[in-house]
């Protein structure tokens, strides 16, 4: 009996998955890292340039803007997709129409960010919302808001909030539902007001969910591509790019594949650092529950 257990055929079950991961991902990662040390336009032969691509990024004004935008995206989308869902989850749990409100805030998450972005383009173009401001006498606001450098980044973050809040709200609602009644009852008996109840009892008990949402949102905000691509393509003059966009621009628009690869490596290093905490958290949790 034991002999069958150790059969080499057991590895056949792993084969397709391992093959796909090895072919598509492992070789890709190695290739991209290698490419980041080369100059390559997609046609002619690759030329080894050492750290030149990284030094180029270091000197490039566009890259600095892109890095700054990435930080802005991370900080603000984290703020909005953590604070707002927490507030919404608390409100919805105490409302008279839990299921309905849940769906209303969730539906944008079921849409693709491409479609969310395109609808926002229409709403924010001069045929949409800006018309309202014209009506109120602010003629200077009747323009395409997504074409205004730096303002457009914040508008896109708000759009990302519209789309991303639902998922985190549901996670928080699930988290709130798992909090046991007894500490809440005890606090109420001791005369805790609602705000104290949340500050001292409920929020601390909600910490595991908060950490999960925080780390997930953090990783996701570094990866945003689709919505920026459809709303501004990183423009005007590359002022609304983030690292994910810059990688695409340098490689597939400007034909500097080596530089694009270097951006991809920078982005990967950042995400791996964040993911380290994410994974440690994930497996820490599994150990506790097991």
């Amino acid at each position, binding site marked *: 009996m034991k002999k069958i257990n150790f059969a080499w055929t057991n590895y056949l079950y792993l084969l397709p998955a391992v093959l796909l991961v090895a072919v598509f991902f492992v070789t890709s990662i190695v290739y991209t890292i290698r490419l980041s040390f080369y100059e390559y336009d997609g046609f002619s032969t690759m030329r080894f340039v050492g750290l030149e691509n990284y030094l180029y990024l270091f000197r490039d004004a566009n890259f600095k803007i892109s890095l700054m935008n990435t930080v802005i995206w991370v900080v603000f989308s984290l703020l909005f997709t953590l604070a707002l869902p927490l507030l919404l989850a608390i409100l919805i749990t105490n409302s008279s129409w839990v299921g309905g409100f849940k769906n209303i805030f969730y539906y944008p998450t079921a849409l693709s960010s491409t479609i969310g972005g395109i609808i926002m383009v229409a709403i924010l173009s001069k045929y949409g919302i800006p018309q309202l401001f014209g009506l109120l006498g602010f003629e200077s606001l009747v323009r395409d808001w997504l074409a205004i450098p730096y303002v457009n980044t914040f508008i896109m973050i708000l759009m990302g909030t519209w789309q991303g809040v639902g998922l985190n709200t549901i996670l928080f609602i699930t988290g709130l539902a798992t909090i046991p009644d007894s500490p809440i009852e005890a606090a109420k008996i001791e005369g805790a007001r609602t705000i104290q109840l949340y500050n001292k009892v409920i929020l601390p008990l909600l910490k595991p969910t908060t950490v999960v949402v925080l780390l997930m949102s953090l990783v996701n905000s570094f990866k945003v591509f689709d919505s920026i691509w459809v709303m501004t393509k990183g423009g005007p003059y590359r002022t609304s790019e983030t690292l994910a966009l810059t990688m695409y621009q340098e*490689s597939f628009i400007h034909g500097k594949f080596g530089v694009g690869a270097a951006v991809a490596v920078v982005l990967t290093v950042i995400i791996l650092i964040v993911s380290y905490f994410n994974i440690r958290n994930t497996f820490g949790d599994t150990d506790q529950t097991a």
Partner: protein
Amino acid sequence: MKQASHGRIVVNAVLIILSILWIFPAVFAVFGTLKKKQEYNLSNFWDLPHGISLAENLKGIAGTFGIVKGMLNSLLYATVSAGAAVIIATLAAYAISHLKIKRPMVWFLFIYSGTIFPFQIFLIPVYKGLTATNLYDTQLGMILFYTAICVPFCMFVLRNYYLGISKEICESAKIDGCNSFQILGHIFVPMSTAPLAVVFLTQFNWVWNELMFGLTFTKSREIRPVMAAITLMDKANVPVILLACVAASIPTLLLFFLLNKHFEAGHAYQSK
């Protein structure tokens, strides 16, 4: 008691106001699809559509932009890739959690690593690789890549689930004369229909909504998935673009509203 009901009224009022904000884009999109191009460009956006130009706009999306073809392509990619990924991931998750193999944790981490890296690091090499193997701009190439990218997450969820199934069930099945494949087919798969459905749905949804790879790995209308096709539409005719958006959202919205519970379960997996 009175205090509490006042509180509830405030809570409901705040939520209703926010809900209107959240629904507005969908209402805007749906009304936009009913307008004519000229009407959209000349009238105010809050004006109701004059006549319903849906039929004319439908002709618009059926035509040159390949939105219908794109939806059929995406349906193919999402169904086949998510399906294949679930099957491949089931086999791997079963081996890692219940079969005797050396270093199961290393195999697990190897496959799981596919979920950690940002997609940008795969973009150039896979593009080059597909070109080199003549799979660039083919349906087979798209299916293979989407399958690969769905496998790690499916494996992760299913392995967690399978770890919870007791070894004793397998032992007794073995004594009854089942081989390991029969145990998988007769015990594990029937026991895990719910998580299998969840991972299939989340991956279907993901492939359907995916843009960046669809844009980079295709060039012809016959192969392009729907999201990439939408971004390449004529920007001047907003009602037709909006109609394409509404049409392309129907499958994922339907899945969401019909299988609400599964999606919530999916989030529970995602957060664990």
